């Protein structure tokens, strides 16, 4: 049996999915698009459940809704499990009225009953079930209430089959009845409604006979049929609501009280800045920095232990080097900031689940609107301080195509956690006491560049287009520990997987190129290695921002393509080859990187910050932008801008150094 899980965003769908399936999940993408596709097996059964994207409707206008309706319409689905937020039944049932039109039984999980109870919302379930002719189970996914019953109901198959349907007025229902036998599909009623709506994606089903019925209807109503149908659906829901739902009206809820503070005209921005400061203090600042040191120590210890272990068992020098200098040094450089990343993931998850993230989008929209972005762009930008990949994917919530594209292209400019080690390394060494200030200046720099790039793009590339902003403002919720733990672990795990695959492979490749020359001789002088050869060609590109032809810095920067932290990893590997100082700052005390000055250090940071992101993020851009051509445009734009900015920074910096 195959079950589709459908519901609005914020309906608690994901929590219920995790509860129903436990660890029995697979994550992939929908065919052709990057929207996440989660499949699981319901505990204690062999029923497959598919988590569809959170949607409000089955319209043809958004990617998520399109995927959902294509899946429901074209694939074999035996049951739809529709999750509804009991605190906003009216809007939730709108999607239900569309699901009921498919020839598939629907069970409604009336979720968040605990909150509805507290708020004094009462349901006459019997009437509600009768009106919709479907089985309704009140549950609370968060409190795990009644979920067992839900599974039992599905297992036994004891649910209504929603055969009786009469939602629209007489004329419409008559027309639907006439169209139904004329279409060749299992979901005749669903399709009949779609052709009446003049849905663009179902035009191929319109025969002359159907056309006649639809145009007759249009003449009768003299209005857009899409609107008539929406009106009728809500009219029916209002009727059902009046009969079966009782709610107290106009209470000043906790959310309103909190919003009086968080959205206060004078307090909103200072509170936001305070919260953001807290996030960076914990993730990127002193606390995060401390965790890096701890892990660094552990990995250093592991390297030494592995070194002596391998030497003791009699491994050949090149094998020892491969494991210690290649694998452990490369992957270790990335693992260093896993704790930092986990802190950041926890904080972002907190901002999202409490409902504060939506507020940020709400009150900053005005600023972003000015430069042609959306308040929703802020979500990718904040998530982007962790990792660009999920950030680029989260740009999907932006309704407007232009705003979405611009956000996707600009998100990689945000210093992601993988760029932090670069900043920490250079700022720490060259700017000493002022390293905090210098790191902060880079964030500030990034914001300025994002806003001005957006402004230019909006006024040059996408001239004269208007856009809109539609955002549901959810209620404040206490965070659920279980949900956050799940969310953070999933993200952290995918990071570790990447370190174990892409980064490991890249580290081995770098180690190979650096350890061998073109005659494949091991242990050659580093200047005659293969890596040095490629680097020397590249070094001309980097000369204007470094003031030095450095093959080592050039190859390291290029490795940012694999993963930004690999820049530091590569520098560590190369420096390790040329000096055997284990203490102090190995990288900048080594002859090979000794040429760096404050100006070239800052310029090098700027280049790495703005240039093309890692392959993971480029892949995400490719999928979200839709075409390879747009991806190349984005990558060239980013790298070109990075080069120009870095050269400017270096020369201005050098000028200042001369004057001082």
């Amino acid at each position: 049996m195959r079950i589709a899980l459908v519901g609005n965003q914020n309906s608690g769908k994901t929590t219920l999915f995790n509860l129903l399936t436990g660890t029995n999940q697979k994550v992939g993408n929908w065919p052709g698009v990057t929207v996440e596709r989660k499949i699981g097996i319901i505990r204690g059964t062999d029923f497959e459940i598919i988590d569809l994207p959170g949607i409000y409707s089955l319209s043809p206008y958004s990617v998520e809704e399109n995927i959902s309706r294509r899946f429901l319409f074209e694939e074999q689905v035996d049951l739809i499990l529709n999750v509804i937020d009991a605190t906003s039944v009216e809007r939730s049932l709108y999607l239900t009225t569309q699901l009921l039109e498919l020839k598939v039984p629907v069970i409604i999980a009336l979720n968040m009953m605990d909150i509805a109870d507290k708020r004094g919302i009462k349901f006459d379930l019997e009437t509600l079930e009768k009106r919709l002719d479907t089985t309704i189970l009140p549950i609370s996914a968060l409190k795990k209430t009644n979920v067992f019953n839900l599974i039992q109901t599905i297992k036994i198959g004891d649910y209504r089959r929603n055969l009786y349907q009469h939602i629209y007025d007489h004329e419409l229902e008559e027309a639907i009845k006439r169209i139904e036998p004329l279409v060749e599909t299992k979901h005749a009623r669903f399709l009949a409604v779609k052709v009446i709506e003049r849905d663009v994606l179902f035009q191929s089903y319109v025969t002359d006979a159907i056309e006649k019925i639809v145009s007759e209807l249009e003449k009768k109503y003299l209005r857009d049929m899409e609107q008539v149908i929406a009106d009728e659906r809500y009219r029916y829901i209002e009727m059902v609501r009046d009969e079966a739902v009782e709610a107290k009206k106009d209470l000043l809820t906790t959310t309103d009280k909190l919003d009086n503070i968080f959205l206060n005209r004078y307090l909103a921005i200072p509170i936001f800045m305070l919260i953001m400061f807290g996030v960076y203090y914990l993730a990127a600042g002193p606390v995060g920095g401390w965790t890096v040191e701890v892990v660094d120590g552990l990995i250093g210890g592991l390297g030494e232990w592995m070194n002596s272990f391998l030497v003791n068992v009699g491994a050949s020098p090149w094998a020892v080097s491969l494991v210690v200098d290649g694998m452990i040094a490369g992957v270790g450089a990335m693992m260093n900031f896993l704790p930092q990343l986990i802190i950041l993931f926890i904080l972002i998850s907190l901002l999202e689940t409490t409902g504060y993230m939506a507020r940020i989008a709400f009150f900053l929209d005005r600023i972003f609107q000015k430069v042609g972005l959306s308040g929703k762009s802020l979500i990718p930008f904040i998530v982007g301080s962790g990792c660009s990949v999920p950030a680029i994917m989260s740009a999907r919530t932006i309704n407007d195509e232009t705003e979405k594209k611009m956000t996707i292209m600009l998100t990689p400019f945000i210093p992601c956690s993988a760029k932090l080690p670069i900043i920490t390394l250079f700022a720490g060494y060259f700017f000493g006491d002022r390293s905090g200030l210098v790191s902060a200046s880079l964030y500030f720099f990034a914001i300025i560049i994002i806003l001005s790039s957006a402004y230019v793009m909006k006024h040059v590339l996408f001239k004269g287009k208007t856009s809109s902003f539609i955002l549901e403002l959810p209620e404040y919720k206490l965070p659920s520990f279980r949900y956050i733990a799940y969310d953070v672990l999933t993200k952290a795990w995918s990071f570790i997987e990447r370190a174990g695959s892409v980064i490991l492979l890249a580290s081995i490749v770098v180690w190979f190129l650096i350890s061998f020359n073109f005659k494949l001789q091991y242990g050659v002088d580093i200047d005659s290695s293969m890596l040095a050869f490629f680097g020397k060609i590249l070094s001309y590109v980097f000369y204007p921002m470094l003031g030095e032809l450095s093959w080592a810095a050039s190859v390291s920067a290029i490795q940012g393509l694999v993963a930004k932290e690999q820049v530091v990893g590569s520098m560590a590997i190369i420096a390790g080859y040329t000096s055997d100082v284990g203490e102090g700052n190995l990288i900048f005390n080594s002859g090979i990187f000794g040429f760096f000055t404050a100006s070239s250090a800052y310029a090098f940071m700027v280049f790495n910050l703005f240039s093309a992101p890692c392959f993971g993020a480029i892949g995400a851009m490719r999928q979200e932008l839709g075409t390879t051509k747009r991806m190349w445009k984005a990558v060239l734009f980013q790298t070109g801008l990075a080069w120009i900015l870095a050269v400017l920074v270096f020369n201005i910096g050098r000028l200042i150094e001369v004057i001082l």
Partner: protein
Amino acid sequence: MKIRREGRTSLSMLKRGQRAKVIQLNITDKALRRRLLDMGITEGVVVKMKKIAPLGDPIDIELRGYELCLRKADLDMIEVEVIS
């Protein structure tokens, strides 16, 4: 500016706490209009102007038991009749 009947205005002109009934959606963009319909802004629905963003735009309205944020420019195109 179109001439409107007595008591009629656009949704963007409501004051904080005011309620109004939606009369008409004057939106030509099909995708946007459908989106608003899907979110429950249908003819006859009663909405309440709830919160204004600290910078004056967007605006948060309450309808059908939940809250929705929209920009002033879009609210301009929704014609309403003020109730209270």
